[in-house]
């Protein structure tokens, strides 16, 4: 078991961007993976994770350095490597108009898997992924988690010796994530497949035997996950918010403190990491806890912390004095043909509240959102946003809301300034007012250094900032954000929530969808959606009561979500059985 499946030695890879600029994606990266082991590449956006995986598949060649995959020189025989390695890119190339079975057949054909071995292998893969009952379904109609499982099955159809997975669980609900990890675990344990994956879920890194922390093309640290965690040894604390203060408020306050690396709300309390060994800041009741991988990771990335802390933010005019409900939704239904995307959903959002719609992909979050914003008519039910139905209200009523769509929809050909100017004009801002608001936005979102860059060329985190800036130019009362943190790294997510918290404090009502369960902790109220229905709603603390606290450790929102969804699905099948 000492054979190396992958050996990377001082790899350097650069890309050209535009006519002059050269981007260094990887700068002297070295690491190795044992055959039959599970390794993870973690790091913020632009760290070089995907580039490294693609180099290992032989799809790219390095500028310098050596790379040996399964004992083969990647630069010399890429085809041979591709014959023996399975690769699942971030967006796996499933053919959405083909069925599950046809996709499998196609990949079996492409990889020349013999007809004789197919039935046995298909059977194993279907058992492993639990896709057996859905072989006739079109791939395009599968849920996000099922698509990922099918992608994995397709990559496994010829039993590769090594499997490279690029963010296999991104955008997948907690239940499917659990299932995917069971499959990966089985591959490593039972079949001695070498698996190398990159992920932005830091808890997943803890399940691997070897972790490589990448940052801007260099290795910050590598080793067993507990070695990374150990970097924060003795610096991690859990604090209870003082009477009359929210965990979110305490977290924001702690983040502002200079000797704190990281602070996140954690099951009603705040978890924070100190810059150096020491004790909790004065006035904060805190108990020391064992560090986890995330704490070590944040310690490593200390020098980037600046951007998170400065992400605090002030409105020109804080909103005050509204008493009405910001959003009222009653029995909202939306059908697409015979498919019910949103099934009798009801909830209220109070003014100045941060409201989270949680649920896996396909749960009906985006459809609900589009109805609230007046982009889609409801099949039945009533909804009021700021007292109005935006679909039928006058166009000027839309000035009261801001909307940040999934993928931060901006005009990619236009520069940052041109985008802001356009959206300002769209909201009727002219002359002096427009100048004032755009410079406010540039300053608050720290976009100043990028004003003349085409927005398509902005790094991921900046795109999100620009989208938010554009949605806040007209000082809306209510801000809608659809999956704002999907596909962004842990740092960008902290930064985002720092801004959202500040906005909430200044009176803006915020409605946000997310599939990161831990982000529910930042919300005042949460509704959990699955299959178009609200399964549970309440404060994060209310929802956590759905699961008993495990020994010594409070239940996480992720545990709560899994418990709630499993219970609902169980009841559902029981009801169907009794009806039959």
């Amino acid at each position: 078991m000492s054979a190396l499946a992958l050996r990377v030695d001082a790899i350097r890879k650069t890309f050209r961007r535009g006519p002059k600029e050269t981007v260094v994606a990887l700068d002297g990266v070295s690491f190795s993976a044992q055959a039959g082991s599970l390794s993870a590449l973690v790091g913020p956006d632009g760290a070089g994770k995907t580039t490294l995986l693609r180099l290992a598949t032989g799809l790219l060649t390095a500028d310098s350095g050596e790379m040996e995959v399964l004992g083969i020189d990647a630069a010399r025989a890429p085809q041979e490597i591709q014959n023996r390695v399975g690769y699942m890119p971030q967006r796996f190339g499933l053919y959405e108009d083909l069925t599950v079975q046809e996709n499998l057949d196609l990949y079996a054909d492409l990889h020349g898997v013999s007809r004789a071995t197919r039935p046995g292998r298909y059977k194993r893969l279907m058992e492993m992924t639990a896709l057996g009952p859905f072989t006739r379904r079109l791939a395009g109609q599968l849920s996000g988690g099922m698509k990922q499982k099918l992608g994995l099955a397709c990559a496994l159809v010829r039993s590769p010796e090594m499997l490279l997975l690029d963010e296999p669980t991104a955008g997948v609900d907690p239940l499917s994530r659990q299932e995917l990890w069971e499959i990966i675990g089985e591959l490593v344990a039972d079949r001695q497949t070498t698996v190398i994956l990159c992920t932005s879920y830091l808890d997943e890194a803890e399940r691997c035997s070897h972790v490589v922390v990448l940052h801007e093309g260099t290795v910050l640290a590598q080793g067993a996950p507990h070695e990374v965690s150990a970097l924060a040894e003795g610096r991690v604390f859990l604090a209870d918010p003082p009477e009359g203060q929210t965990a979110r408020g305490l977290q924001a306050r702690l983040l502002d403190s200079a000797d704190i690396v990281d602070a996140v709300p954690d099951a009603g309390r705040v978890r924070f990491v100190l810059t150096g060994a020491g004790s909790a800041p004065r006035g904060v009741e805190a108990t020391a806890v064992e560090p986890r991988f995330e704490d070590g990771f944040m310690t490593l990335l200390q020098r980037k912390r600046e951007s998170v802390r400065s992400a605090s933010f002030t409105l020109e005019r804080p909103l005050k004095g509204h008493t009405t409900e910001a959003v009222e939704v009653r029995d909202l239904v939306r059908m697409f043909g015979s498919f019910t995307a949103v099934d009798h959903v009801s909830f209220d959002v109070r003014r100045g509240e941060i409201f989270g719609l949680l649920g896996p992909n396909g749960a009906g979050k985006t459809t609900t959102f589009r109805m609230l914003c007046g982009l889609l008519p409801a099949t039945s039910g009533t909804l009021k946003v700021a007292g109005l139905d935006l679909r039928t209200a006058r166009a000027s009523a839309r000035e009261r809301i801001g909307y940040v769509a999934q993928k931060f929809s901006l005009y990619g050909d236009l520069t940052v300034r041109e985008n802001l100017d356009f959206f300002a004009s769209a909201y009727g801002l002219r002359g002096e007012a427009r100048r004032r608001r755009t410079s406010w936005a540039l300053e608050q979102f720290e976009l100043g250094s990028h004003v003349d860059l085409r927005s398509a060329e902005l790094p991921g985190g900046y795109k999100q900032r620009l989208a938010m800036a554009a949605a806040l130019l007209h000082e809306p009362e209510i801000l809608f954000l659809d999956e704002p943190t999907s596909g962004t790294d842990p740092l960008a997510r902290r930064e985002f929530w720092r801004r959202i918290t500040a906005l909430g404090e200044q009176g803006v009502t915020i409605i946000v969808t997310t599939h990161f369960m831990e982000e529910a902790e930042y919300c005042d109220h949460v509704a959990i959606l699955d299959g178009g229905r609200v399964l549970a709603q309440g404060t994060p603390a209310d929802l956590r009561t759905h699961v008993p606290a495990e020994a010594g450790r409070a239940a996480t929102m992720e545990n709560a979500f899994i418990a709630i969804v499993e219970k609902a699905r169980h009841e559902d099948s029981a009801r169907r059985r009794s009806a039959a």
Partner: protein
Amino acid sequence: MWESLARISALIRKELLAMLKDPRARWSIVVPPVLQCLIFGYAATYDLNNVPYAVLDQDHSFASRDLLARFDGSRVFQRVADLQRAADIARVIDNRDAILVIQVPQDFERDLLLGKPASVQLIADGRNSNTAGVAQAYAGAIVDAFNADWRGQHGEAGPPIDIASRAWFNSNLETRWNMIPSLIGTITLIQTMMLAAMSIAREREQGTFDQLLVTPFRPLEIMAGKAVPSMIIGTIQATNILLVAQLWFRIPFQGSFVVLYAGLVLFLLAAVGIGIFVSSIAATMQQAMLYSFLLIMPFSLLSGLTTPITNMPEPLQILTFANPLRYAITIAQRVYLEGVGIATLVPNLWPMAIIATVTLGAATWMFRHRVA
């Protein structure tokens, strides 16, 4: 009102910026239409020059040589072979060595001198019926001229009817003269329709359309903001083609620019309306592109550009009433070559206004009611 205009102008500015920012995009708006126009001007012509023909002269007389000399002397025909036997005729036609074979039989001169009708056989390659027909017509004209001269020289009375033909507006009947002004409509239709269709389909695909719909933009404002930039580009392209027609091909412009541009604006509105309507049905850019291509063929076939509308079967003739290009070509030709005033063109103007109203109205409705 003021607010509304400010929003529309912001959208127009944004559209033009996005369309013209990239130097390659600017290039692709100006150069291809001009190139297309040049290619059409040279390639798409029914005028015949240097038609290869073969001769089977079985008479070898003064009269036969005189007749054939007239063929050789015209710019139209070029003799490529002198045949000896009738059996050779099939060979030169089959091999496409000649498009036309003239057979002058024995006794040609004798019959003429005797005052009897003499015959000449013309054999044409009918595989291209158009060319064959035109070549035969040219040959007929040459033979007619020969007849008339012969009668004059031999003291016989001239033919009872002497046709004096003058082609008005295009005295040399050059295809180019009628083709190029039509391109002002045809080329700009393709480009503006595509631009309009793609500009909305792109926003839908990239998700910016939702973003636009949640701003205070009203559907009509979005429509105006999307229509005007495409129309501006269309006007620039039409102007370029007009310049090529006058400065390069030297086709004299008879009418008024004001009248031509008035017709053009209505036509562009209809073209943009169709484009926007296409994009309101299409889910992706690819679909918008496909649908536009599907429309271009019937639009140009049913426009009267290449074949007269009056020759088409009745149902197709009715269909042409929904084709803005039909009216645009009529307007372009009549203003350009004929110089008619706006009053004459009214029957061609209002149908385009109706097409624009219907397509833009339907698209506006679709934007709000379509199930995403």
